[in-house]
């Protein structure tokens, strides 16, 4: 064996475990403010992801155990589950997870080889294919007349035939969706935002979920698992774009803090855009990646066909990573920038 002969005590498993741990505050907040339904979604996505991962490893002739233990499949499952509506039907969860693990991850070569963030691919496939089911968001408990228990949530998720009236009683348009439809109905931002779904910064309940994601993200930053570059520039991209639009016409464009404190933005900035595999690697590249993804998020929210744009923004930027990396190579020790001839 060649040098070096010692290793730091880090591992992929350790990194993934910390990412999962950093999601726990958000999951707890989710349960507290929106009910226990998310636990069912998380569990179903986890089981599906592990089964798909094991099957794909087997098919591809890789050792199953070390790759299952790297926990990367669970991270994908949780990120997807937290992006999905909390009362999405079971088949939606399974379809999205399968697509993320089988197509976006393994058909591209498995861990470390995927160009796109698998969870976001799964999400994008679902929102494009099943837009109606992707609106099954449970409203925050404080606005709900009859909160669902764990058993009720389970039966909603697994119910083959949930009456539309039942669903309508427990689901609610998200704040972003409400803003979008309100603005489409020619209401001003101020008029739309008088609805109870809008809270102090973001949406009622949703803003606390966003704060919990922020807390987890700061934990990852403090542990040096992620660097500040992508989250900060992503948030800056969202805030600056939203701020500019709001300043330009406060009646037609929502306030920047509202856009910033959407859970999807915090989840995207700290947990998804920071995915090292599908993100930019150079310091300057990370700044460009984050800022552009933030800007694209707002562009899609404002002018696109979907209420939220985080997933598409990140996927679009994933596409640009090879280009960004190539043109943002940092200066090396001793200052050489151009290619050097090998010593004779």
């Amino acid at each position, binding site marked *: *064996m*060649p*040098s*070096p*002969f*010692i*290793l*730091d005590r*880090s*591992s*992929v498993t*350790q*990194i993934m475990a910390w990412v999962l741990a950093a999601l726990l505050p958000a999951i707890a907040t989710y349960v507290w403010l929106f009910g226990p339904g998310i636990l069912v979604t998380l569990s179903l996505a986890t089981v599906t992801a592990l089964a798909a991962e094991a099957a794909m490893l087997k098919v591809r002739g890789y050792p199953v155990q*070390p*790759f299952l233990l*790297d926990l*990367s499949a669970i991270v994908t499952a949780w990120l997807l589950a937290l992006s999905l509506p909390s009362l999405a039907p079971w088949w939606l969860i399974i379809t999205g997870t399968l697509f993320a693990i089988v197509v976006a991850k393994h058909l591209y070569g*498995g*861990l*470390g*080889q995927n160009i796109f963030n698998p969870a976001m691919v799964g999400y994008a496939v679902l929102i494009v294919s099943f837009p109606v089911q992707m609106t099954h968001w449970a409203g925050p408990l404080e606005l709900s007349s009859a909160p669902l228990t764990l058993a009720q949530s389970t039966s909603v998720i697994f119910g083959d035939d949930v009456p539309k009236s039942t669903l309508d009683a427990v689901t609610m348009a998200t704040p972003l969706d409400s803003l979008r439809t309100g603005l489409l109905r020619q209401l001003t931002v101020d008029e739309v935002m008088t609805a109870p779904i809008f809270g102090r910064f973001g949406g009622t309940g949703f803003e606390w979920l966003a704060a919990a994601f922020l807390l987890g993200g700061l934990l990852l930053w403090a542990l040096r698992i992620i660097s500040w570059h992508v989250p900060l520039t992503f948030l800056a991209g969202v805030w600056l774009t939203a701020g500019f639009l709001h300043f330009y016409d406060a009646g037609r464009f929502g306030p920047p803090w509202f856009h910033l404190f959407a859970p999807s933005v915090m989840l995207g900035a700290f947990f998804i855009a920071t995915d*090292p*595999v599908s*993100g930019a*690697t*150079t310091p300057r590249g990370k700044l460009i990646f984050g800022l552009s993804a933030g800007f694209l998020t707002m562009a899609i929210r404002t002018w696109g066909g979907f209420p939220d744009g985080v997933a598409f923004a990140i996927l679009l930027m994933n596409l640009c990573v090879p280009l960004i*990396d190539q043109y943002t*190579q*940092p*200066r*090396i*020790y*001793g*200052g*050489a920038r151009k*290619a*050097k001839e*090998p*010593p*004779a």
Partner: protein
Amino acid sequence: MSRELFKFKGGVHPPEHKAESNGRPIHAAPLPRKLVIPLRQHIGNPAKPVVEVGERVLKGQMIAAADGPISTAVHASSSGTVTAIDLQPVPHVSGLPDLCITIETDGRDEWIAHAPLDYRAMAPADLRTKLRDLGLAGLGGAVFPTGAKLNPGASGHCPTLIINGGECEPWITCDDVLMRHHADEILQGMAVMRHMMGSTEILVGIEDNKPEALDSMRSAAAKLDFAVEIIAVPTLYPSGGAKQMTEILTGKQVPSGKRSTDVGLQVFNVGTAYALARAVHHGEPLISRLVTVTGHVLRPQNFEVLIGTPMHTLITLAGDRDGTTGVLMGGPMMGMPMPTLDAPVVKATNCLLVESKELFPPLPKALPCIRCTRCADACPAELQPQELFRFAKAGDFGRAQEYHLFDCIECGCCSYVCPSHIPLVDFYRYAKSEIWAHEKDKRAADLARERHEFRQFRQEREKTEKAEKLAAKAQAKRAELAAEPAVVGAAPSDADAKKALIAAALARAQAKKSDAAPKNVDHLTPEQLQQIDEIEARRAKIRELARQPLESEEKNT
């Protein structure tokens, strides 16, 4: 300390493990019965033997002479009889045996006559040659011939002289112990360096995990009649790398592909300064050095060891233990495993690190790269190791070079931090060797093409010359005939001229024909091809021998 220190980018802080061996006093290792002294212990041309088998040699006698300016001599470490000049196992990363001179010692340890050098009176070039003949080479790791490095270049002076006492690699303490016990001699050697380099600023960088060494060096420096700054630098691997130490102390980076003297500074290891003092003030060649023996042994410590001493004797001295899994020469970050402990201690041997399963558990299996860029954060050369890995793995060596593969110093920081446990440095070594091999092939092909083209040109030229000669001859003949028409008559003259014209035209046509069908290497017989191959192989070998790696930087680990 008033001096502002700078930080180099990257670096890691592995467990230091210095306390195991730095507390015990220096012990002189006993004289072994047999010394095996390799001829290639330094960067540059191997030394050429100047003794014969059966010859009696004295301690300090030159047994192999330096070959060229980038080379150093090799000396008998003790008195005895030369019993063999042949291939023996040596500590080299290739694991291949190399030419060595074996001396059966007689136990008398009888010195050859030697005297101090009056270095101030000597011409710098003569002094450099003398130091080369005393076998001095950098003891920090790279073993670059010291004489060649003690050259300030055209400007005649090198403003800044840096003495490197970083010793950042875990486990190794030979420099630490040397500074504790021989600070005066180190500074004497430094004074010689100052004289030769014409330096005005002298900086000694020592990692702050060696407070005793710092104290000892400071009190020794206080006795000098010129200013020397003894500077504690933060403990961070690889601060003892020459480039990193330079940046810490001066904030300057040595430009990629240039030498440190180009930016007005030169770096020497403390051990080299000590060896220089012994050489100049006592006339002693480099025949011994300090070696740390540590790790899985009963009494980890530093020994003063004669060059050529078999490694296993040192491990026995330090107390070998059950459960030894291997021995490294050097530290855990850049050291190399020793295939056999019969290999001798050489000038580059700073440490023998005995491994056990507890101290050095087997490394976990590598997982795929997840592009986390921890390696890039740790890289002191400020490279993008994850990209270099990708290119090296894909065999895309051109891209690897574009991404500055050859600026990699192989310090191992990237591999150390990699959460996927990828042996990154190994991939870079592989890519470098592939590129070197490719360059060699390319040069050989270029040479063959040049020779072929010249041959074609020569053949063509010969044909043209021949045709011209023929035409000139015909012309002369015609002129001759035309000159005597009265004698023979006009008719035969006409016929002859026609003949000459035809001959010239034939010659031209022939020349043209041979042009149209050049004899190139496509139509060679297998015998000819084989002959060419053999010639090429011989040439390649000669070229390789002639072209030694020129490492201007002394690495100090």
